[in-house]
């Protein structure tokens, strides 16, 4: 009896497979891509615990345990890298509400044409390349010909060497990033605001609630789940900063303030070819990110019933 059932089940499965194999042909390119370029590097990350010798390959290189991690934790730059990474991340986090504020504000515009126009302009900078943005920053902030310093001088101040003074680096990096992305970040909140039931507003208006009150008691709670989700995702990449931009803005003079874990990985791994050591540092970075993501996801689930999984 069981045997027959199993056979039937097997034949059902094989029938389904006969119908479904073409989908796997469609999936194949993506699967192969992800296996080679995402999963194979995860296998390769074991070189963080080995002394990688290109001649021997990943598998046959000798194990060294946590030696690379120890070297990193004990190095004199370890705390500088951690400090810079955490400070810049916290600084960025302080601007997390900016896009929410902008979205709430744009959402209150009554003229639809003007509203669209404002959106279009505010998210345009998002499409400027990192290299051009960095070039703009360097040119604008030049102590000799930069317009920012010319304006400071015009109101009676002295030129500030923004790019070579370590004290300024973090502000330059974070504020320029905010300039580029606040409008783009607002789009998702605007979409969420558009989904709020207009009847809620009508009812509140009948009760005599002012616009400010309606924003505070209807709009903000309405988009809270979206805020929480984005916040969790944000925490998941807490210490993976936009290091591509940092590399461009970094120079010998501001290194003390601008060097973060990932720029260090790039220099040690790609420029100095210390593959194993740099992989170990990179792995440490990913591990911290995952821990932050899981932690904040748990917290959000407890507090708010909103979570990624």
């Amino acid at each position, binding site marked *: 009896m069981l045997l027959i059932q199993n056979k039937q089940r097997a034949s059902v499965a094989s029938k389904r497979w006969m119908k479904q194999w073409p989908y796997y042909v469609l999936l194949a390119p993506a699967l192969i891509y992800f296996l080679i370029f995402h999963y194979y590097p995860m296998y390769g990350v074991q070189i963080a615990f080995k002394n990688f010798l290109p001649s021997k390959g990943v598998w046959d290189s000798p194990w060294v345990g946590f030696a690379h991690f120890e070297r990193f934790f004990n190095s004199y730059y370890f705390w500088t890298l951690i400090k810079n990474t955490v400070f810049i991340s916290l600084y960025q986090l302080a601007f997390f509400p900016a896009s929410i504020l902008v979205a709430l*504000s744009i959402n209150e515009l009554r003229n639809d044409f003007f509203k669209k126009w404002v959106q279009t302009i505010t998210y345009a*900078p998002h499409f400027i390349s990192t290299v051009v943005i960095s070039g703009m920053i360097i040119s604008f902030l030049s102590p000799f010909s930069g317009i920012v310093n010319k304006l400071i001088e015009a109101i009676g101040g002295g030129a500030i060497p923004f790019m070579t003074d370590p004290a300024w680096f973090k502000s330059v990096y974070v504020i320029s990033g905010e300039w580029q992305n606040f409008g783009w970040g607002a789009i998702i909140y605007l979409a969420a605001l558009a989904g709020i039931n207009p009847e809620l507003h009508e009812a509140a208006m009948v009760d005599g609630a*002012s616009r400010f009150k309606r924003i505070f008691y209807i709009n903000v709670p309405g988009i809270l789940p979206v805020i929480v989700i984005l916040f969790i995702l944000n925490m998941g990449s807490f210490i993976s900063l936009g290091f591509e931009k940092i590399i461009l803005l970094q120079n010998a003079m501001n290194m003390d303030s601008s060097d973060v874990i990932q720029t260090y990985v790039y220099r040690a791994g*790609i420029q100095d070819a210390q593959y194993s050591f740099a992989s170990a540092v*990179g792995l440490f970075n990913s591990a911290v990110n995952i821990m932050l993501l899981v932690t904040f996801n748990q917290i959000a689930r407890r507090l708010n019933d909103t979570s990624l999984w």
Partner: protein
Amino acid sequence: MREITADKAFNISNMIFILFLLAIVCYPLLYIISASISDPIAVNSGRMWLWPIGVSWEGYKRVLQSAEIWTGYRNTIVYTLLGTAINLLVTLPCAYALSKKKLIGGKVVMMLLLFTMFFQGGIIPSYLVVKQLHMVNTIWAIMIPQAAAVWYIIVTMTFFRNTIPQELEEAAEIDGCSVFGVFLRIVLPLSAPIIAVMGLFYGVGHWNEYFTALLYLSNENLYPLQLVLRKILILNQMSSMLSSVKDPLVLAEQARIAEIVKYAVMIVASLPMLIAYPFLQRFFIKGVFIGSLKS
């Protein structure tokens, strides 16, 4: 009545806030445009601060004469077109297959993809894979390691699920159409909006990408525009646009125009985006909206 005055005050302060936002976004952009066509002395001295002074095309002339810029432009166009084509060839079929909720193992594949959003081997192991495949210093290193993005696959999959009528596909199957036939003849023709959105997102990504090229390319003939820009804007190496004569007079002249050349370079490099942007932004919003529906 008090409420209405409160609302009026609110509207006014809101409008001031919006105008402030518009100003801080527009000012730098306007400044670049003005600076790129102004008299270099007026720019360097800070006399030019909003509208161009003493129109001069010197900057653009230097940029357009530079062989490096042209090579970079050509390479970037190739990488963008070819790269985007590869992205679509990988993303669309995969998203279609995953859009079938009954697909055996579909959930497992989805988990496999999602996992890569949160955990990666890191740049060194990835670099070693590309090296092992002998792609370093070839155009493939720019395109193949970025053949698809999980987020875009999810957005596309959501589009397929929500907008392609299931009955249409079933009817075509009954008529003897194969899975491939349904995908090519029914689904794709109905998916023009998502193909456009995905093409634009991937395309903009390729156009603006510099780090992959920095990582994998050392042959300057293969440099995309962004790496050429990096040399000019960040590293201040402008040999292709300024002569290498050591005559002090020539050097002084070069220092004089260096800044406006940079502003002209920024405009030239962003020009395709500037022209296309007003037309594209409609699509971008759509793309993000479809994505946000999912979450």
